[in-house]
């Protein structure tokens, strides 16, 4: 499948330091890609480069056969057919909701423009607020108007900068689902930039991890979660413990048990283990100390201690008051890396 928008080894320097460092990314029609990284990792800069709001110092941005950005070449944002939803929504305070959505539709004749804008508002279930002004809307409503405004031009690509970060926890799930429905029904390629692992895993068809200006890994979320390319990549998508290990004859031995490490030479290594990797075991497991036990509604959060190495597990149940538990490692939630 040909990508509808593609970044090839794009770099951007701020004061001599790379904010984006040879980043490559492909967006496909009808697919939602999440770009996950901590704040300051360069993901918003990459987004702005794609939108044409920021030039590229090296590498190139292509749309189909067309070059959009390259050193010395810059197609203006208004000529890119790329929509964008801003973190602060950036609604125009002097225009009504309907006029905000119709802002980018000036080429259409008036009746058609209004019809289209109303259609988009309907898609985000805000048709009844068409005549309102942005300052009377809640945060979630503003976010949906911003989405409708970007979708109204029927762009080939739509970029969303931290679209859910301004919303409080209660509304977040509902609005996220509604936004995803709208995005999918529009059929554009979408790129969602976020620092929230849960948002990224839940929304994305494809996931890209970014840190220090670099893309660490790309793939489907399950794969990126379970098969991280590095400890840093693992920690972007969720909790992970680093267990010192010794590899002997294709097995990595840690304080919590052994997992298969086929093909890896003997010597020191590091085992990345998700909380799910620590399974309750019967007699076959290893007995470890429970250092702390916290109740978190659906699960218990256990801090385990074995051989001076702490680890974190999420279990449904333990024997109340038990000082030790028996665990074994589930290799599906582990990965073996070189020692640091």
């Amino acid at each position, binding site marked *: 499948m040909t990508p509808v928008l593609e970044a090839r080894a794009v770099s951007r320097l701020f004061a001599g330091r790379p904010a984006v460092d040879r980043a490559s990314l492909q967006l496909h029609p009808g697919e939602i890609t999440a770009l996950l990284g901590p704040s300051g990792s360069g993901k918003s800069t990459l987004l*702005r480069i794609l*939108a*044409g*709001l*920021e*030039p590229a110092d090296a590498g190139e941005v292509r749309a189909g056969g067309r070059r959009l950005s390259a050193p010395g070449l*810059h197609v*203006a*944002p*208004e000529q*890119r057919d*790329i*929509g*964008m939803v*801003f*973190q*602060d*929504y*950036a*609604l*125009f*305070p*002097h*225009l009504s909701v309907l006029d905000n959505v119709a*802002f*980018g539709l*000036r080429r259409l004749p008036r009746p058609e423009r209004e019809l289209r804008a109303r259609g988009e508002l309907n898609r985000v279930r805000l048709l009844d607020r068409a005549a309102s002004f*942005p*300052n009377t809307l809640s945060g979630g409503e503003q976010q949906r108007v*911003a989405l409708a*405004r*970007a979708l109204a*031009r029927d762009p080939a690509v739509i970029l969303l900068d931290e679209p859910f970060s301004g919303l409080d926890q209660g509304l977040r799930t509902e609005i996220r689902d509604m936004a995803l429905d709208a995005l999918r029904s529009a059929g554009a390629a979408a790129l969602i930039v976020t620092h929230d692992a849960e948002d990224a895993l839940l929304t994305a068809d494809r996931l890209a991890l970014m840190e220090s200006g670099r893309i660490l890994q790309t793939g489907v979320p399950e794969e990126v979660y379970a098969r991280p390319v590095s400890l840093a990549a693992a920690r972007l998508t969720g909790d992970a413990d680093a267990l010192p290990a010794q590899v002997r004859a294709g097995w990595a031995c840690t304080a919590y048990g052994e997992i298969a490490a086929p093909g890896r030479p003997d010597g020191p290594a590091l085992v990345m283990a998700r909380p799910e990797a620590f399974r309750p075991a019967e007699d076959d497991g290893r007995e470890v100390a429970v250092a702390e036990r916290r109740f978190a509604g659906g699960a218990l959060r256990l801090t385990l201690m074995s051989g001076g190495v702490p680890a974190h597990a999420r279990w449904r149940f333990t024997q109340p008051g038990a000082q030790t538990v028996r665990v074994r490692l589930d290799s599906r939630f582990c990965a073996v890396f070189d020692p640091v």
Partner: protein
Amino acid sequence: MRATPMALTEVPAPEAAFARRPRGAPWTLAAPSPLRLAALLAAALVVLPLIAVTFLAFQPAEAGPSPAILARYAQDTALLAAGVALGATGLGAVAAWLVVMHRFPGRGLFEWALALPLAAPAYVLAYGWADLLDVAGPVHTALRTAGLDPNWLQVRTLPGAVLLLSFAFYPYVYLTARAAFLSQPVCSLDAARTLGCSPRQVFFRVALPLARPALAAGAALAVMETLADYGAVTYLGVQTLTTGVVRAFTSYGSPEVAARLSLALLGAAALMLWLERSGRSGQTYAARSGRPLGRTDLGPVAGAVAAAFCTALLLAALLIPAIWLAIRAGQAAPDLPRLARAGATSLGMAAAGTAVTLGLAVAIAFGARGRTAWPARVASLGYATPGAVMAIGLLAPAALIWRTAGAPAAGVIAGLVLLLYAYAARLTAAALGPIDAGLTRVTPSMDRAARTLGETEAGALRRVHAPVARGALWTAALLVFVDVLKELPATLILRPFNFDTLAVAASNYASDERLAQAAWPALLLVALAVGPVLFLSRRIARSRPGGRRP
């Protein structure tokens, strides 16, 4: 006459013309756009006359006032400026403190009415008061009849000028101080109370120190106005550097000497500008709190005193001189054709001057948007420049035009263009203040949203920036309109022969000691200016720092 500066912007004038607007990452797609070029051009237009003045000052001069006289000018200017700084600051700060922090009869009315004296130029105040307190005037006559010695009551002295100009210019301090008191963090006032301060101690130990930068900024504006004043001090017979500039040119015919005096004025004005700027940046730590200020009830006695103080201020700074001038005007039949012509000229010049100035200010504000705004800083230099100095800087091209213009009509038109140039060069910064403040409502991402929605840079300005800042554009237009209406020295120096504005007509009548005749154009001028000033001061009174729409 200069007037109505950045103080009259919507209240929490955020850094206004002087500093960068706080707006995140700079717009990095900076091809040298036509807008940017327009901003640079506008800044160059402002600074050109100042360069000309400097150049002219170092040319060999022929005759001029003696060094002793010049020293006298400088000394009186310094004394006058210092006196007005104290007087205007005292009056303005007390008025603002009363109106913002207390409840007393008429408070709501005084809140906006105390800004109204901005409609009356200082020279109109001088005409009214000096005539009322003249040796042959009604007050002196009454005192003599009562067997009292009236000779201590003299306005045509340096102390008299200090007092009159303090009345004329206190609104600048009032407006900046009011904004500062309104934006002071309520929580720190509350904290002071819980730490054992009485309300009086809260004022002296918290509120006043917090407002000090704003007071300094207001005082600097008042001093800038004082330095630039020509009409009032001339009528009161006080010699200052500005009257020296005008006299060096008109009596001695020496632009070089005028330019040298101008350099001294420019130095003082630059100092005031610096003071004003540092005062402004100091205002930023006044946090905006959502909670309204609690006003102290003053009780019947103190309330009556407060109301009396505000009433007296309004009487002295506007009503008494205006009413006396109206009485005097009744004693003479107006020269109606001349009055009508001067009125039409004033309105025409004010409208044209506003259009040109607003054009330049919009070019600078939009062109410099989101970047280091040095064109705005250059423009603020023009604002600090007294009108007489600006005119001297434009004399060289003016002389050239008079000499080379074949047809007189062409010369007149060129002269008018120069005059408009002088207005614009001086007032662009005054317009820039409110426009810049209005544009802070356009966030960088709104700008970018417009671009990703298919608008070009110019289209985004037209469809987003301009409509969002529309109210600010109106404010700026009214500010400039009133200022041009009141302008005197630059018009006196640069106007084509027989070209009278109301200000010029009033000044000419007054210098001929025909005060009853001067009262007509003076009052007409105030009548034309009071509408816009009323609108602006009501708008300011309604606005609350931090109470804006998102």
